[in-house]
């Protein structure tokens, strides 16, 4: 056996630990099985009262009182309880490292340990010696900046005092990750190398750098001899430039004797630490200065060097903290699982211990849990208890992160020396930096966090807490399974600035250097500070990061290549939807001289005095809204120029939001380019016209009194793709449908067609009155959206303001009669009549309910309107809008607003639109129903469940949620592949879930999903930029069997109320209606084609001809139904498609040529060309 030091013992102890744990877990399982019922109940009960719940005691399990059963029963219905536990168990199993991998890695570690022991010692080299010693080797010493020149101390390599396994692998909380496992090994340098004052001026760091390079040099040669083929590079531990380490990966050789661990995808990180307690920790407190630089001024006022100090202190404590956590693990059974949950939760949100990933990872989470097991309350009361389950530990820790401010209001102070007593307190008055302070080691555990990353962590924690508190739905997936770290989807707005433009103007002097260490850190901090101040309430959280973070570099280099020239700053913003588009940034009152001076110096020339309505005179900045550019971007551009560039040149601020907003059609209205994207001005004008029309109608002399008007048009709920523009009669949504209801009467005819005739008589009466007595124009039109009911009519009204309305009447008899028809029909008719009934509900009551709900929601979620309009635009450019009803699209789009988990509510057009696409691409509608809670606002987790506000709200209850879900399950039992109905969308307005998605064919739904997936893939691969955005809105035509190119002899853009491209808007003005209003003939053509060929061909087209670049062209694409257009069918007269005899007897086939000729016949002069799939 090889001789082992104490470090070796720790290592072997750990390895034994694996086996003993195995046994433990098996025992656990057994226990679980025996106590199925009781554990189910007690588990849930603890959820309910989480902070105060006593741990699982046997006594409690045995005595199931009636009340316990009651609680268990109630909560078992919530299903979350049991299933959540089971899910966690499964997840942890899934995340467990493979046993074979673990044992292989252990073998490797043993061998590596042996190799390290073989490294010869070397003593007292001067700097020059070091240089000459390493001259012939490929290894450089990774000295931190500034590189040492003349030193009066020597370098040595002595056998490490300890070699120990640290980090998650050491703690057995390692989990499988896509990148592979990193196994951390800490080598502790012997005490004798150091002197007392080595913590000053990089001295210990230089010594370590040499130690590391010497280690590297020898590992290189020795590992080969010991059959451990490896590749070594330098890596900054957690991105800390003061702390390089060795990253070791396996090299695959074909030699059988070699120990190769490439298949485990793991890497080993050799971290060199300092002996624990070697330096006076008080001297290294975060507010001390430990880098003495010579400045021209008094050298006593040197700034503190918190990063430097913390880096040195944490280098002394790797093993110390491992032991600390290990002790906690031993005392708390579920600690390990909870750490795994925490690690996964953080990882899915892009957090890790690394600077670049927020500086809060598995280690910090575990320390926090340990501290909370000791206390953590204001009085030192324990937040976590040792008997908690993994779920409870996790939840309570998340709750602590979400609700306790560790930055400004207070901080957490604990003592890692005492494990058992109440050693942790929440103390008031924070340090203005995120702080969890260990009194023993004097380390701020959160030293790698910034205010920015802390804000974001807190946000995630509070969002997850809401999800954990949700009793209606299963939130497991959103909490643990979805990765939401992609910049593309998590922010509302992303801005990129190339770093090099800041270089010349920034004074990054020695003082800045010692407090921030790198220019990147310095500029990140500065950008954050400037933006925080400039954007104020407009943003919720700001993330400032670098596009590329190079932590790994070749051992032949002292440090990684500087990429300042090519790297960019990535600023991610979470916006406050209510504030972000405000025109004015308010400053102090004019009287407050001092504040005014500050405000002026910050805002420069932009600050101006304004008098407000209430007579107050304030300093403020006025911004200009624009259709394409959010105000935020304008402010950022201005303030960057002012503060980061000395006002000399414009800063290059790259954002794609402008490109995206461009695709929203700009209305043909005065000053529309100056309207914010959130402006609902045009919709409000329409609303005013609607109000005056209904007022007028109310006062008409009619045989029955009008009870109500219910609008059902997208434009009246702010979701129409085109904004309403007066006299824009070519807009396909020009007419706004309104349902009129009279006071109840028994006189309505008791037969459907006669009822429709009576309604027509009423409409004729109104028509007469309007035309004769008012300046409104009206006429009657057919309403044929309900099959077999060909007598329905509606009244078209043109208002003097230039808007169009279509009024239909709903009576209390309609529904009874449709239902009666179903009752009286034969079995075969019943199927169709049920569809007819659905059509009726869709066109009347369903539409009314939907409209009411969405009108409120569009107001509440301010970015919903613009996002859903852009989504409609996308659908239209992909020729899909014609296939789906407005209501269905709006329901799909509202998902990411009312149920944004795992994100927060989108607060920009960009995030709204992208998340809708992402949701669509992920929605597996065969297996999952979309159940929407169509109410505004969230529930407050702190609020008591019994409170009136929560009880009175319209939220879906568990019962209704389960009802909808069971409706879905029933449906899928009959139709498992979803061939009849794809999108099941249930809500309080429609428990059946099928109202709006009944009419689609499978290929269209499949295409919608496929297109959204393609779009998301493009964005993931190539990012969001003007090219990819253009690609998103370019129709994919290759999949269709044929394309018909159409052209109208007149343009429809301006008459649809769209600002034509490349034209001066003041040249075109819509002021009147033509004699007869003819909507787009191309949509009529589509209708005709569908009438004749809908059973054999799917036609798609863009609904808005006016939106196409030329304003008069459009295409209709055709896709043959494969089941019908290929092969032969038995002859029947009602096959429903064009037949020609086939060679088989009595069988016919599809006559394609004839159909094409017929299409040409219908299209006539409108057809410009037709292309077939080659």
């Amino acid at each position: 056996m090889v001789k082992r030091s104490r470090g070796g013992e720790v290592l072997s102890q750990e390895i034994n630990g694996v086996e003993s744990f195995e046994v433990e877990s098996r025992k656990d399982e057994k226990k679980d099985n025996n106590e199925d019922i009781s554990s189910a109940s007690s588990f849930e009960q603890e959820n309910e009262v989480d902070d105060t719940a006593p741990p699982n005691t046997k006594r409690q399990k045995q005595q199931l009182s009636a009340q316990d059963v009651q609680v268990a029963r109630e909560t078992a219905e919530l299903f979350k309880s049991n299933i959540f536990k089971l899910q966690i168990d499964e997840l942890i199993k899934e995340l467990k490292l493979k046993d074979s991998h673990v044992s292989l890695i252990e073998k490797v570690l043993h061998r590596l340990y042996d190799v390290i022991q073989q490294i010869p010692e070397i003593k007292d080299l001067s700097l020059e010696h070091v240089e000459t010693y390493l001259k012939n080797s490929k290894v450089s010493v990774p000295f931190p900046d500034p590189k040492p020149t003349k030193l009066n101390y020597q370098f040595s390599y002595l056998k490490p005092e300890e070699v120990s396994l640290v980090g998650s692998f050491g703690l057995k909380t390692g989990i499988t990750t896509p990148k592979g496992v990193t196994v951390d090994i800490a080598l502790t340098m012997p005490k004798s190398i150091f002197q007392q004052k080595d913590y000053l001026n990089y001295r210990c760091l230089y010594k370590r750098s040499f130690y590391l390079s010497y280690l590297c040099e020898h590992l290189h040669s020795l590992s080969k001899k010991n059959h451990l083929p490896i590749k070594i590079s330098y890596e900054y531990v957690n991105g800390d430039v003061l702390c390089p380490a060795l990253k070791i990966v396996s090299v695959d050789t074909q030699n059988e004797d070699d120990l190769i661990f490439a298949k485990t995808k793991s890497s080993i990180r050799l971290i060199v630490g300092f002996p624990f307690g070697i330096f006076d920790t008080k001297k290294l407190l975060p507010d001390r200065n430990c880098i003495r630089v010579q400045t021209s001024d008094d050298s006593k006022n040197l700034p503190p060097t918190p990063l430097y100090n913390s880096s040195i202190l944490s280098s002394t404590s790797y093993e110390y903290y491992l032991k600390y956590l290990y002790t906690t693990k031993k005392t708390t059974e579920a600690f390990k699982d909870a750490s795994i949950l925490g690690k996964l939760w953080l990882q899915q949100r892009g957090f890790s211990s690394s600077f670049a990933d927020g500086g809060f990872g598995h280690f910090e989470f575990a320390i926090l849990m340990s501290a909370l097991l000791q206390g953590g309350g204001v009085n030192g009361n324990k937040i976590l208890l040792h008997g908690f389950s993994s779920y409870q530990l996790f939840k309570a820790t998340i709750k602590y992160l979400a609700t306790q401010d560790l930055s400004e209001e207070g901080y957490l102070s604990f003592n890692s020396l005492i494990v058992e007593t109440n050693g942790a307190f929440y103390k008031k008055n924070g340090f203005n930096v995120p702080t969890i302070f260990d009194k023993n080691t004097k380390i701020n555990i959160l030293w790698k966090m910034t205010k920015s990353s802390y804000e974001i962590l807190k946000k995630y924690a509070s969002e997850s807490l809401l999800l954990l508190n949700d009793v209606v739905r299963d939130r497991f997936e959103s909490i643990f399974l979805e990765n939401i770290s992609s910049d593309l989807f998590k922010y509302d707005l992303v801005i990129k600035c190339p770093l090099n433009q800041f270089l010349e103007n920034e004074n990054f002097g020695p003082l800045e250097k010692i407090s921030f260490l790198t220019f990147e850190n310095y500029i990140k901090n500065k950008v954050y500070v400037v933006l925080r101040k400039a954007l104020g309430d407009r943003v919720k959280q700001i993330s400032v990061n670098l596009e590329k973070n190079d932590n790994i570099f070749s051992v032949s280099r002292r440090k990684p290549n500087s990429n300042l020239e090519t790297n960019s700053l990535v600023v991610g913003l979470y916006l406050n939807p209510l504030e972000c588009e405000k025109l004015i940034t308010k400053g102090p009152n004019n009287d407050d001289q001092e504040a005014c001076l500050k405000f002026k110096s910050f805002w420069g020339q932009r600050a101006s005095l304004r008098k407000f309505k209430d007579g107050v005179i304030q300093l403020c900045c006025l911004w200009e809204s624009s259709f394409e550019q959010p105000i935020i971007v304008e402010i950022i551009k201005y303030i960057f120029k002012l503060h980061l560039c000395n006002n000399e040149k414009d800063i290059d601020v790259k954002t794609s939001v402008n490109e995206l907003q461009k695709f929203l059609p700009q209305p043909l209205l005065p000053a529309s380019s100056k309207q914010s994207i959130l402006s609902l001005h045009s919709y409000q004008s329409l609303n005013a016209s609607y109000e005056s029309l209904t007022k007028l109608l109310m006062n008409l002399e009619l045989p029955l009194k009008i009870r109500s008007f219910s609008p059902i048009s997208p434009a009246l709920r702010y979701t129409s793709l085109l904004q309403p523009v007066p006299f824009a009669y070519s807009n396909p949504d020009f007419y706004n449908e309104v349902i009129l209801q009279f006071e109840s009467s028994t006189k309505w005819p008791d037969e459907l067609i006669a009822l429709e005739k009576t309604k027509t008589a009423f409409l004729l009466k109104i028509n007469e009155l309007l035309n004769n007595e008012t300046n409104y124009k009206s006429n009657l039109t057919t309403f044929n959206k309900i099959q077999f009911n060909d007598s329905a009519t509606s009244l078209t009204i043109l208002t003097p303001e230039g808007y169009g309305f279509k009024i239909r009447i709903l009576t209390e008899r309609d529904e009874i009669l449709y239902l009666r028809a179903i009752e009286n029909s034969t079995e075969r008719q019943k199927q169709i009549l049920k569809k007819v009934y659905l059509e009726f509900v869709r066109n009347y009551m369903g539409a009314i309910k939907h409209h009411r709900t969405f009108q409120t929601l569009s107001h509440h979620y301010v970015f919903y309107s613009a996002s859903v309009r852009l989504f409609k635009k996308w659908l239209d450019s992909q020729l899909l809008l014609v296939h789906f009803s407005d209501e269905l699209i709006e329901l799909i789009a509202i998902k990411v607003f009312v149920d944004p988990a795992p994100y927060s509510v989108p607060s920009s057009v960009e995030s709204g639109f992208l998340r809708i696409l992402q949701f669509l691409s992920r929605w597996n509608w065969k297996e999952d129903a979309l159940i929407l809670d169509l109410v505004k606002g969230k529930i407050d987790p702190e609020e008591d469940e019994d409170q009136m506000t929560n009880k009175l709200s319209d939220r879906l209850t568990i019962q209704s949620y389960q009802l909808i879900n069971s409706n879905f399950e029933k449906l899928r039992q009959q139709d498992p592949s979803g061939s009849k109905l794809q999108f099941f969308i249930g809500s309080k307005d429609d428990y059946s879930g099928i109202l709006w998605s009944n009419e689609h064919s499978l290929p269209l739904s499949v295409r919608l999903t496929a297109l959204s997936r393609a779009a998301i893939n493009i964005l993931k691969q190539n990012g969001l930029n003007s090219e990819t955005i253009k690609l998103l809105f370019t129709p994919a035509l290759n999949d269709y069997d044929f394309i018909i190119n159409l052209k109208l002899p007149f343009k429809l853009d301006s008459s649809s109320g769209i600002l034509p491209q490349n034209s001066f808007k003041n040249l075109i003005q819509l002021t009147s209606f033509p004699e007869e209003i003819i909507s787009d003939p191309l949509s009529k053509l589509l209708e005709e084609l569908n009438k004749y060929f809908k059973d054999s061909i799917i036609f798609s087209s863009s609904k808005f001809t006016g939106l196409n670049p030329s304003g008069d062209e459009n295409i209709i694409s055709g896709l043959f139904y494969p089941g019908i257009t290929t092969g032969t069918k038995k002859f029947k007269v009602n096959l429903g498609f064009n037949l020609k005899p086939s060679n088989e007897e009595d069988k016919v086939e599809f006559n394609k040529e004839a159909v094409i000729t017929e299409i040409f016949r219908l299209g006539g002069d409108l057809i410009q060309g037709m292309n077939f799939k080659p």
Partner: protein
Amino acid sequence: MSQVQEIKGFLVLPVRLEPTVVQQKLKYNNEGAIYHYIYLKKHSVKRDLKSMEKDDERSLFIANLPINTDLKTIKLFFGMIATGAIVEKFEQNDFNTFDIDINLTKLTSEMNEKTEVSNSDYSYIPFGCGIVTFLDKNGLNLALQSIKKLIKKGNDNLPIWEFNKELTGLEYLKKKILSQEYLDENELSEKVAKDMHNFNLKEQQSLDELNEMKDIVDEDGFTLVVSSHRKTKNGIFGKLKSSAQAEKHEIINLKQKKKEKQDFYRFQLRERKKQEMNDLLAKFKEDQEKVKIMKEKRRFKPY
């Protein structure tokens, strides 16, 4: 290729379709003539309506008609292939693309259907099919003969199907839009007035019948009591039927819900508790099952 001449009793007549101007210009399908196949058969009605008259003897059922066929195109066509066979009328279904006939008036009315005035004496015609009625029997025979001849002659002499030249392109679509968007108000109000009048008549008739019933005293000496809101006999009987059913249902329910204390005896409590525990257990098993399914669907892969 040997031409199929008959299929399931239908004559198969290929007709040539002339490519449109645009089609020619785009040179689509200039390789040969384009054929459309129509299927013809003597029309026979299997109905026992009293109007079993000569119509049947002189009408022709045509399936798979080219689009936009109307009386004018039919007249033109038969004028061309069978001079002398004069077309009297042409009926088709040009709107109902469902493969079924549904009359909402019939289905929603509770009135007696005896008085129904049907304005067309044909039953349901499938979409894309039509019935041509000739002036006399001879006309039909003539047409059939010449069609048979044409079929025999084969490819070279097949007739051209003349589309209605007006029903194409922009003008046609515009007209279509206008006819739907602008209904003639006078015409409409006349029609509504007429229909409402008819409906009222029918209703009155039905009401009269009902009133008659009121006056009749049956064998047991009872008379029918009729509410003033009631308008039809069927309405009452329909209601009676359904209310009888509902009553039955309720009685059954009532029987089940006997007045019985659920927590009086100890065993009841015990049973109930046991039941609850079992439920809980079942629930737990169910959840386990759910998780198992989720696992199979690989729902626990976080990456």
